[in-house]
């Protein structure tokens, strides 16, 4: 057992613990959460239809993970991100990616040294076709637009994934959850979808 290192400002609310199996400090993120680490921690998440970008500065070992999905499109259902570029889905997805990248850069990362890995987007919620694919398609579009290459990806398919990410080394362990009960993952994702669809995450405006 070691002391849990201090979290970067803004990530104090994330569930962090000593992982007895991996013998490492860990941070577990839920749908809609982010975590960035400077301390060689392990970042853990479980993905159904959601997608996670694991991004780190491969020179400095600073990195983190997001975990999100796009809100449903009630406007034109075109998936051409570029031409339908101000839909609530695009704006939310952009924010989820940019927020993670900005926090890594603020923690000392350099854009030119970023390494990106992408996971998730399974077809887990059976009554909602291809939303996993849609989340992955968005992340691929976004990264291409920003000139960031994907160095590893495991996405799609019908099983949820447990992802363990080590931002200091870039190592990732992905386990497909074929046999465990997935009710918790599904109900957590459904709750999250309901939230982002009914309460759009529009930022505050303040005039000085």
């Amino acid at each position, binding site marked *: 057992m070691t002391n849990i290192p201090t979290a970067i400002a803004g990530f104090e609310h994330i569930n962090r613990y000593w992982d007895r199996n991996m013998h490492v400090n860990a941070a577990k993120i839920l749908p809609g959460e982010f975590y960035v680490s400077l301390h060689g921690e392990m970042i853990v998440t479980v993905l159904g239809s959601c997608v996670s970008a694991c991004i780190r500065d491969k020179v400095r070992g600073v990195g983190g993970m997001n975990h999100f999905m796009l809100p449903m499109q009630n406007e034109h259902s075109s998936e051409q991100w*570029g031409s339908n570029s*101000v839909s609530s889905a695009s704006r939310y997805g952009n*924010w989820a990616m*940019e927020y993670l990248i*900005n926090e890594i850069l603020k923690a000392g990362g350099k854009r030119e040294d970023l390494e990106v890995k992408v996971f998730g987007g399974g077809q887990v919620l059976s009554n909602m076709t291809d939303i996993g694919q849609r989340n992955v398609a968005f992340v691929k579009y976004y990264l291409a637009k*920003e000139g960031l290459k994907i160095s590893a990806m495991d996405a799609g398919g019908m099983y949820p994934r447990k992802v363990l990410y080590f931002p200091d080394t870039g190592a990732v362990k992905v386990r497909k959850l074929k046999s465990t009960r997935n009710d918790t993952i599904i109900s957590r994702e459904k709750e999250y979808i309901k939230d982002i669809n009914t309460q759009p995450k*529009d930022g*505050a405006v303040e005039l000085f």
Partner: protein
Amino acid sequence: MTKILAVDDSASMRQMVSFTLKGAGYEVVEAADGKLALEQAKKQQFDLVLSDVNMPVMDGITLVKELRALSNYKFTPILMLTTESAGDKKMEGKQAGATGWLVKPFNPDQLLATIKKVL
């Protein structure tokens, strides 16, 4: 035509912001960091500057300070559009001379209403 300088290091964010502003009838010039924005601002007069905060080369707060030091940008509205919602960063922006602070993800109607209000 009202001319807006939109500054953001993210290409997809610039695209979304431009799309929104052009759709509302504004003329938009894009810049990818504070330094490039400053060069543009010296070349032509903008009626409003909409800038990100965290950017390489020159960040948004420095850009505001540099613009406010120019006689023709002393009173030009400068809005910050950022993922930053922390109070101290916002205070820094206010002290540098920014007109307002919008937190991403932006709502297009809200962005346009704010621009109208400060122009």
